[in-house]
């Protein structure tokens, strides 16, 4: 738990909207250690998704450095980044983003098509991933035949099937009812504690954040608070989280 896995150094991210320039992240520094489960919180528009995308290698900063493991991903070209993502990142989306014309099995198999694994090995990996998320009996179901919670669990199986270095999730429970959200959170917690996955999730949900080992709060692109969750008693936690709940636009 002591080795740094992600080092974000002085990153600046700007967006241009017409002639306007919007600085979303301004000289941000941030470190994540191996085996951490980080909840990224903050008001809407504070730059959470932007930061997550930068660490996942989906987007690139205007300046600064991002190291993940030994790789300086801020120096990789677009094509190199795609290849790097396939090996190191499992990404979970708020809207699941399963492919409707592929079965649960085929959706989970997709990332493995980028590996040198043969057909039978791929099958084994997919079966393991689906049984971890508790959906081994739904392999041949299409996404439309699954509930939202089941779809998100298939998406999690897709994210873990290549055994990536990092699991990233952007509001993974945002579209789910309370019960399904709970199941997904328990699953993420288990992936962290049992399978030692390093996880970063963006969330507005204090219940989700409570599962994490560390709570990081962003405000207008600046790190405001960075605390291990075990140090928070429930009253203080609710207070910290309530800020985000209020800030969430509906």
């Amino acid at each position: 738990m002591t080795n740094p896995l992600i080092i974000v150094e002085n990153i600046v991210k700007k967006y241009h909207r017409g002639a306007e320039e919007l600085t979303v992240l301004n000289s941000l520094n941030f470190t994540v250690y191996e085996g951490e489960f980080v909840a990224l919180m903050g008001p809407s528009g504070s730059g959470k998704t932007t930061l997550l995308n930068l660490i996942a290698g989906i987007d690139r900063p205007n300046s600064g450095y991002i190291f993940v493991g030994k790789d300086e991903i801020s120096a990789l070209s677009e094509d190199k980044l795609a290849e790097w993502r396939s090996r190191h990142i499992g990404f979970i989306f708020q809207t699941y983003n399963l492919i409707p014309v592929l079965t649960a099995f085929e959706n989970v198999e997709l990332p493995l098509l980028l590996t040198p694994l043969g057909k039978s090995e791929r099958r084994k990996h997919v079966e393991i991933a689906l049984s971890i998320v508790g959906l081994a009996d739904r392999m041949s179901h299409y996404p439309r035949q699954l509930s939202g919670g089941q779809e998100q669990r298939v998406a999690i199986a897709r994210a873990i099937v290549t055994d990536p270095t990092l699991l990233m999730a952007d509001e993974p429970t945002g579209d789910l009812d309370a019960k399904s959200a709970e199941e997904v959170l328990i699953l993420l917690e288990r992936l962290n504690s049992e399978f030692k996955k390093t996880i970063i999730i963006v969330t507005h949900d204090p219940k989700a954040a409570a599962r994490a080992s560390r709570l990081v709060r962003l405000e207008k692109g600046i790190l405001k608070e960075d605390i291990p969750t075990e140090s928070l008693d429930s009253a203080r936690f609710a207070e910290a989280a309530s800020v985000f709940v209020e800030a969430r636009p509906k």
Partner: protein
Amino acid sequence: MAIPLKYNVRNLFVRKITTGLTVLGIGLVVAVFLSVMSLSEGLARVFKASGSTRNVLVLRQNSQSEVQSGISRNQVPLILTLPGIEKNIDGNPLASSELVVMLNLKKIDGGASNVTLRGISEKSPLLRPQFKLIEGRMFSPGLSEVIVSRSISERFKNCRLGDTIHFGVYKWKVVGIFDAGGTAPDSEIWTDVEGAMNSFKRPSYSSVLVRTTDKASRDQFIAALAGDPRLALEGKVERVYYDEQTSTAAPIKFFGIFIGVIMAIGAGFGAMNTMYAAVSTRTKEIAMLRVLGFSRLAILTSFIVEALCLALLGGLLGCLLGILTVELALSGVTGTTNFTTFSEVVFAFRLTPKILLTGIILSLFIGLFGGILPATQAAFTKIILALRQIE
């Protein structure tokens, strides 16, 4: 490894109506193209199958066809003395002096058309091994009798066995029906050459057909003919002569390719429209695939493959429609005008495997044309923007 093919195929079947309409459009284009090409192929085949490489057709210098040529009676013995001509068992040279006349005859299904009447000598059938009398008997010289090819007898009035053909003041009795195995005489009526010259008051023959022993003697004969200043004649290898007549098929082929290309561009824009719609409804999916690590090239390939599958379905439908059209609607023999001799040429629409393959290739080009821009757009999807897009 690439994005699996089933992803594309299933997506095509999800959009049943758009896919169906696009496939139908491409199918119709391919079917029309196939029909025109099969017409051109049928025509070309008549001429291609015709003529031996050992026969030499002697014509007056610079005549395009037998109709324009003339060879006087006293030139014939000179021709026969030239070297290279094969001798019959009786020692006589294997050569036939012939007269070609155009008759304008009425068709059974209305209208009229020119038909070649060929005056032949008794050697003619020997020079044309495909010739076979299939009904009745050979004409008797001097009695105004004719034998008619089967396809002419089926398509022109008064040409059946036992009928009498009227043309101007002339009357010929049909005493036999023959078949020439798809070669040029299948569009002809034959009678004896002397009788025909008398009837039409022609002082000279149209051509002399000569059989040579082999390639060397053939070239020797042609050279000797060209080198004889008294004659002013030229010899053409019979096969080459008929190949040149194939120029009738060339404009049809050109026309076929021309409308094929025009219509294919139309169908290509249809396919492009369908593919643009496919890409824009799947933008988020594409972004997700990119996040998983699929390269831009993989996305590009995948959507081009999808367009090709779409077009291939159209191509297969087109082949099916083409086969049905040619077999059902255009089956049997048909005639058209040979633009060199203005005579009726009998041929059948021919849908060869090669033509069907051209149809499939055409459909794939339509797919490529329609797919390349949408696929490029898909490949350059902005991941971040697409992921923010709310469904």
